[in-house]
């Protein structure tokens, strides 16, 4: 029972079997089961960088003015009126035709057996019919024109109202933008160290790119003053600010306003701006 001797034969056999088995498993193409894990599908939002170039006074996007066009109710009521008018016209025409026909009949009776009368009567009938048709058409046209005019007037009114509203909104927005602009200006002015070479008539235009957090992403000189040191001082002033904290409030409150006014910001640096 107890393995005497060194037991090497048994050990070699066992080890050989173990490894042979593993090799055989591998060669036979076995591989550990794996099931591709089902990752929870995340819904991605496509983010595209858009650059709103519009100046502060840029008109609002077209979506707003479209609203009033759908609004006016009066044209909705119009068809009923048109129908009523048309019915009245029809009735009048019918009455008139009947009366005329009676008159013609009478004339015919008066000039009985006269071919001419008959022909006249036919002509009269025809004329009457034509006239009635013309009347009807004219009245219909008038009604349609009236409706169109009313509709146009309503639209005009709505547009004016929308324009007024827009103007009011724009004024408020402009005020807001102006306050933030002055904030930006103050922050930059506080960090601006003019080089000794700065002169009063120098002017450098910078374009600053901001992200909604207020972080400065890039500064570019659009129009140089001709003095590299002066340009650099302006760029440094913007970069030293680094981040306009309060712009974050604006972009949270009104992202569109931020996009329009602060996404790319053109700044003009003039020494006399600082009253120096």
């Amino acid at each position, binding site marked *: 029972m107890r393995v005497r001797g060194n037991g*090497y034969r048994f050990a070699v056999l066992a080890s050989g079997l173990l490894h042979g088995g593993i090799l055989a498993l*591998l060669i036979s193409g076995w591989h550990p089961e794996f099931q591709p894990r089902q990752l929870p599908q995340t819904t991605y939002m496509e983010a595209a960088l858009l650059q709103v170039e519009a100046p502060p006074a840029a008109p609002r996007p077209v979506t707003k003015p479209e609203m009033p066009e759908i609004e006016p109710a009066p044209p909705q009521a119009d068809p009923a009126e048109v129908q009523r008018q048309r019915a009245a016209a029809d009735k009048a025409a019918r009455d008139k035709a009947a009366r005329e026909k009676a008159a013609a009949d009478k004339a015919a009776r008066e000039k009985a057996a006269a071919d001419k009368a008959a022909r006249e009567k036919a002509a009269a009938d025809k004329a009457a019919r034509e006239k009635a048709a013309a009347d009807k058409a004219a009245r219909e046209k008038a009604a349609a024109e009236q409706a169109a005019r009313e509709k146009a007037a309503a639209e005009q009114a709505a547009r004016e109202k929308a324009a007024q509203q827009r103007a009011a909104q724009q004024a408020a927005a402009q005020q807001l933008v102006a306050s933030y602009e002055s904030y930006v200006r103050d922050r930059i002015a506080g960090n601006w160290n003019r080089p000794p070479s700065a002169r009063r008539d120098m002017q450098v235009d910078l374009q600053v790119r901001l992200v909604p957090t207020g972080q400065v992403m890039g500064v570019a000189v659009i129009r140089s003053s001709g003095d590299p040191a002066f340009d650099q001082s302006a760029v440094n002033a913007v970069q030293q600010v680094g981040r306009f904290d309060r712009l974050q409030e604006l972009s949270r409150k009104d992202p569109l306003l931020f996009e329009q006014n602060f996404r790319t910001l053109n700044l003009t640096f003039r020494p006399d701006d600082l009253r120096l």
Partner: protein
Amino acid sequence: MTQELSIWVLILGATLPVKLVMLILFGASVLSWVMIVQRGLYLRAAGADFKDFENTFWSGVDLNQLFSDGNQRLQGNQHLPGVEAVFRAGFREFNRLTQQRSPDPDAVVAGVERAMRVALSREEEKLNTHLPFLASVASVSPYIGLFGTVWGIMQAFRGLAGVQQATLAVVAPGIAEALIATAMGLFAAIPAVIAYNRYAALVDQVYSGYQTFAEEFSGILHRRVHSKVS
């Protein structure tokens, strides 16, 4: 086949150094398993033999009788348990020394102890055979496997450098094939570590049993030689 990246395909697709590494690791694994099984059997047998022998020894059997039994078994080419070898070495030395005229008791005891110490160290050697091998497999094979992996990944990335579009699909097979080397290293190392720790503890236990027995036996002989003299 390329879709189903079975492990065997990956092994065959590996570069030569990685293949060599895998071969070495495979060999190490085979050998270490031979050692593991052999040592396991041997140490278990040694432990059981030790217990058996102690039982016989303390059952009050005549020591001369025990010794001549051992002689018989040796002549029959049978295996003697390690503790019995210690006993025989001590007893033989004792007999030899006491057969001299007017033996010095202290010299007898010292001689017996020396003889038993020699036998003990021989037995310890026997118990410890192959354990260093297991230890080195346990500690080195992860490194060998890691080397294979690093080499394989280096190759994968070098291949990647020549590709226009670096997708995951380009690197993944190379990395998978490289990682097999680490897997094999661990496969060889883990059983070796476990076996080494377990067997080292077993050897300690058996050997300390031998030592205790040797002390006790020399105590018995010491008593006997002193009573003889006085």
